[in-house]
């Protein structure tokens, strides 16, 4: 299993109190609120939460792929190797993208350009960042396709995306993200969601394998607790734009302190209590509208542990251990439930 001694490693990226909003016609959508994250070198941080909770917006804030406008950084900073990404000019961001911060996406079916061969797409990344010929770029593309375990890479390099299966395309995507001369951060935005279960496992294995080979850190975005268990060193749980709990992967599964984390774990089909059961438990209610959301805890309308104060103000950080923090007024109650 994972070793949790990595907290001595150097910090690669630290996001401090990021507030990110979208100004749309009907008002301001506060997609990410007061979010702080730290990613250390060689570490996998997973960002967990349901659709629309701001996971992707957070990830795209790092390499600035959010459309701006309507998107807007209201406040905060993102320090990457000693520089604040949010104050860098666009050409420096472009130079970082694909070299030190690369990204793979959820939909391998649509994330590759349908009118170019995968080889030329990978070669183009090389050629953007280094002075090399197309020939040399293609040669390196073959090497990368080999690295991500695509069979007969010399012929596959000339294939168009539609000639590859979903799993192959995702491997090609990963190869494209690896076209970097320097190890850095790979952002994986739900990399396995659109794939078959068997292919999922292969892709996750591949990512773990590559991580040790090229010494990169991974920011993995997912809503699948199974993927979290497989990949994560640390976990940040997000709900409606806020981080509600953060811990090492063992603590999250064994000693969750936030009612939402507890709810997520309770709705896992693999949970012990479902042996012989006929129905899965779900968290009651729906996610609040980010347009009209107030200052209280966003989860309070669905929370079985809610106190009167929950709807009025968002709780401060409660440090449980050095690696484990929770943002909940009533985390003691969750602790008692777990203890039973």
């Amino acid at each position, binding site marked *: 299993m994972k070793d949790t001694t990595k907290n001595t490693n150097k910090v690669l990226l630290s996001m401090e109190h990021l507030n990110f909003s979208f100004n749309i016609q009907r008002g301001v959508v506060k997609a990410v609120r007061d979010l702080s994250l730290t990613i250390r070198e060689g570490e996998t941080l997973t960002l967990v939460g349901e659709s629309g909770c701001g996971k992707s917006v957070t990830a795209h804030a790092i390499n600035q792929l959010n459309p701006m406008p309507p998107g807007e950084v209201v406040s905060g900073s993102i320090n990457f190797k000693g520089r604040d990404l949010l104050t860098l000019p666009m050409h420096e961001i472009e130079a970082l*993208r*694909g070299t030190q911060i690369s990204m793979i996406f959820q939909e391998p079916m649509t994330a*590759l350009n349908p*009118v170019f061969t995968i080889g030329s797409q990978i070669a183009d*990344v090389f050629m953007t960042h280094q002075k090399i010929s197309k020939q040399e770029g293609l040669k390196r593309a073959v090497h990368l396709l080999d690295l991500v375990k695509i069979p007969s890479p010399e012929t596959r390099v000339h294939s*168009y995306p*539609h*000639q590859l299966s979903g799993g192959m395309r995702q491997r090609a*995507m990963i190869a494209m993200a690896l076209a970097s001369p320097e190890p850095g951060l790979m952002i994986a935005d739900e990399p396995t969601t659109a794939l078959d279960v068997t292919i999922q496992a292969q892709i996750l294995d591949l990512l773990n394998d590559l991580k040790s080979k090229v010494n990169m850190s991974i920011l993995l975005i997912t809503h699948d607790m199974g993927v979290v268990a497989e990949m994560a060193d640390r976990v940040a749980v997000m709900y409606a734009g806020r981080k509600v709990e953060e811990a090492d992967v063992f603590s999250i599964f064994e000693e969750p302190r936030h009612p939402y984390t507890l709810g997520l774990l309770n709705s896992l089909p693999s949970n012990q209590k479902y042996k012989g059961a006929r129905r899965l438990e779900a968290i009651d209610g729906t996610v609040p509208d980010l347009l009209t959301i107030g200052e209280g805890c966003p989860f309070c309308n669905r929370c079985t542990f809610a106190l009167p104060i929950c709807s009025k103000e968002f709780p401060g950080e409660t440090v449980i251990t050095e690696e484990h923090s929770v943002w909940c007024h009533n985390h003691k109650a969750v602790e008692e439930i777990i203890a039973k």
Partner: protein
Amino acid sequence: MLKHILKRLGLLIPTLFGVVTLVFFMIALAPGDPARVMLGERANAAQIEQIRQELGLDKPLIQQYGLYLSRVVRLDLGESITSGQKIKDEISERFPATIELAIWAMLFASIVGIILGVTSARKRNSWVDYTTMGGALVGVSMPVFWLGLVLIMIFSVWLDLLPTGGRMNVRYYFEPITNFYIIDGMILWITEGTPKYLVSAFQHLILPTIALGTIPLAIIARTTRSSMLEVLQQDYIKTARSAGIRERRVVYRYALRNALLPVVTVIGLQFGLLLSGAILTETVFSWPGIGKWIYVAIGARDYPAVQGGIIFISTFFVLINLVVDILYSVINPRIRMQ
């Protein structure tokens, strides 16, 4: 690929059969009589009857149709009633003028239209976008003949910058070589050492090109914009950006290549329509092309000329569609494989 092209060429035959049939009967249905037009108001019935016999117009319609069809199959389009020349020769003499104008108009429309469309899409909802799309709406609603006359009024009559019509300064002694005057102008520049022919040919092309190209330009700009807007939302654009590809390259290589698919179709269709639009433009600018020739032939009820001209243009239209299809598969590998 070759098999596909041959198959498409084979499909030309039934299409052209339909065109020939349609054109023949539509003209037969039109009021007016070539014999009467030829002889004028005061001809008597016997004279008219004689001419009608000479032209074969006294025979039953279905028999005329059979005769015409059998000649067309032998690639014989007949002779013009008014000039007595072979239709084939008349067309081959005038067609280069039409094609030259059409190609320039289409180049103008495509290049400017695509650039405007891409710019509007990138700067969506900015003043650039609003101005371009507003202009495109005006452009697409503008009648060609009216636009032509306004251009002549402004640039030829008021400003005296450009000629009002024709293809070449009439004072220049000029023996056409290819009949494409821009090319001829270049050849003569080399052989005779003076660019005056090229300059004159170019000056004569400007106004008709703008008049003929404005509507396709507007349509191409609108199509490019909407296609680009859709493509720029696609995941693979985000992928390209996330890999650090420069924005300019993302737009003009990664996005435009995909966005061009519907645009190419529109360009092909517009090119075909241009040939019919050429009838008006050529008339306004006294452009000695096939459009103006058909226009005159219609007035004279010169049946063989009208039929021959329309059949020729139709064939050309179908061929352009074939070229578009081939281009399509070059741009889009997903089609190539099938």
